[in-house]
């Protein structure tokens, strides 16, 4: 039982990191990114091909190195960010809202079919696999997994502290201002594309990083593990926890992930109908997404705009204006600019 819970909570911790990455793009910047799971998958693949050594025929994949694990993680994240830089440059340059989502949806399917069919890259449909031990062996199976779980929790805590720090920093407030009103932020001298782009790269990097952790945990990965629909559970988790709030996102990830694994454990999955359990699970996720969006779109712990907990609630507008206008009537001034129809885009 202890092993069972360790396994579930390890996965939940890894997915919480991924969810925070997605939430930066979706919750903070307001860009609903459907290709985030491709970044996660790329992180998994890159980490594996950099650590598991040369492929043995008929398996084929690129690199095939035996790198030190942390070095492999760094390289994997760099590759993922470089890749996200291309997609982001295309999708964020002039496309917003549903057009952005459509572009990322196209991107994830194109990447998916490419990886599935082009075997020299990551062995195509069969995927890559290989046992590797970031600690270099010497521990028993159980001890290793407990240690790995503890490491994941510590990393999760570290990432959480970093992300919430950025969230309440001037950058965190600025990106939300850009999300809420691009024209106004632009009038106040903020570079809209650059703000969104940096958030996108950071979020993608976080997704790649969580993929690296997942690679060390799972040890085998093929395209069936990352069908683009797999990501929906994370959207549900973010919606339940609260978009734009790191605390809520971590909470939502644990609730939804553990909740779904536990709930669907009791659904009978007869041998003749192996698809029944997963299908019911997906239906529940779909329902959860729709119901949350309809009845509580801000989630369990709603985002607090501009609040860093110490200064009470302040609207982002006053924060903005303080540094740029030095005027007490800044709200009025900003309103006047918006009302006069200045279109900065």
């Amino acid at each position, binding site marked *: 039982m202890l092993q069972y819970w360790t396994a579930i909570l390890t996965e939940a911790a890894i997915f919480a990191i991924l969810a925070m990455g997605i939430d930066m793009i979706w919750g903070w910047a307001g860009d609903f990114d459907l290709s985030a799971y491709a970044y996660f998958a790329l992180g998994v693949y890159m980490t594996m091909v950099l650590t598991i050594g040369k492929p043995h025929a008929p398996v084929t994949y690129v690199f095939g190195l035996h790198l030190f694990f942390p070095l492999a993680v760094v390289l994997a994240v760099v590759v993922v960010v470089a890749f996200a830089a291309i997609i982001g440059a295309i999708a964020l340059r002039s496309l917003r809202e549903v*057009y952005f989502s459509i572009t990322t949806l196209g991107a994830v399917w194109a990447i998916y079919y490419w990886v599935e069919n082009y075997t020299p890259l990551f062995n195509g449909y069969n995927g890559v696999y290989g046992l590797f031990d970031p600690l270099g062996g010497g521990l028993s199976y159980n001890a290793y997994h407990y240690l790995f779980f503890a490491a994941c929790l510590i990393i999760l805590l570290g990432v959480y502290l970093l992300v919430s720090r950025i969230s309440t920093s001037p950058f965190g407030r600025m990106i939300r201002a850009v999300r809420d009103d691009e024209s106004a932020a632009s009038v106040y001298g903020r570079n809209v594309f650059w703000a969104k782009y940096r958030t996108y790269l950071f979020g993608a990097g976080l997704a790649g990083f969580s993929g690296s952790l997942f690679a060390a945990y799972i040890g085998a990965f093929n395209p069936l593990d990352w069908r683009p629909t797999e990501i*929906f559970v994370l959207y549900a988790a973010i919606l339940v926890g609260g978009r734009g709030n790191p605390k809520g996102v971590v909470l939502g990830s644990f609730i939804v992930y553990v909740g779904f694994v536990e709930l669907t454990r009791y659904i009978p999955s007869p041998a003749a109908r192996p*698809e029944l359990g997963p299908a019911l699970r*997906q239906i529940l996720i*779909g329902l959860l997404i729709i119901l949350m969006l309809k009845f509580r779109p801000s989630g369990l712990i709603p985002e607090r705009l501009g609040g860093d907990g110490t200064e009470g609630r302040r609207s982002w507008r006053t924060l903005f204006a303080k540094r740029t206008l030095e005027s007490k009537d800044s709200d009025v001034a900003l309103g006047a600019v918006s009302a006069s129809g200045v279109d900065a*885009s």
Partner: protein
Amino acid sequence: MSIFWISIGMGIAVAAILALSSVAFTLEYAVSRVVNLAHGEVLTIGAYAAYVAETTFHFNLYECAIVATIFGAVTGMALNYFLIERFRGQKSLSTLIATLGASLILQNLLLIAFGGASVSYAFNQGNLLHVGPFLWTTLTIRVIISAVVVAVLIYIFLQRTKIGKALRAVAQNRELAQVSGIPARSVVMRTWATAGAVSGFAGFLYGETIGTITPTVGNGFLLLSITAAVGGGLGRPYPTLGGALMLGLVMSIAGTYWSSSYQLVVAFGFLVLMLLVKPNGLFVRGKAQTVRA
């Protein structure tokens, strides 16, 4: 050169079905301002409805087509009534995410009902025929002709009927249409019924052409429909039609000289190219710096 013409011939068949599917998708966007990610499932439902009609009730080809159309229409209306109308007034992005949830639900309901294994119709494929430079089966020709007929019917529906005129008015400005005395709600509902019917029929044609039906068959077609609609001009039926024909041909040519496994990669390349060059659509005049819904 003959392989080239044969692949163009297949491209025309796929493009004809794609045209129907993407016009339906674009009509949904036109009246409800929603990118319906559950659109693919309407096609799948049409395909499976015809399959059940054929295997269980032994209907013939034409009766099966009617069954697919009816089930598509009902699904379209249900989507509008239970989902789209409930999210009216919210951001278009929220509705998009909600349709994503609906797509997940419908797809997995189909998986539970029919299993993951592929099924196929038992209709006679007919004879191989040389038509000009093309090589088609009788069934393919029927598919192309019926797609053209449906496209013409949509044109007449939009341009010549009163409801079509009302639809165009609602698409331009729902509130304004409402105060002008057009029952916007019922027009939107009828548009979804029409779009659903066309999608269901397209799903039947697609199942017939590619020969296998699975619970994800429509979802694979969704991205192509979106690409065609966005490439041509989202929310505009005739530009969408042009986009679909172009995409169908591009894909079949790429499939001949490269590999059909990379179809969606080609489609995405096409989509990105369109969005970079003419983000408002290939066949729509005008230019916008930022494209938003």
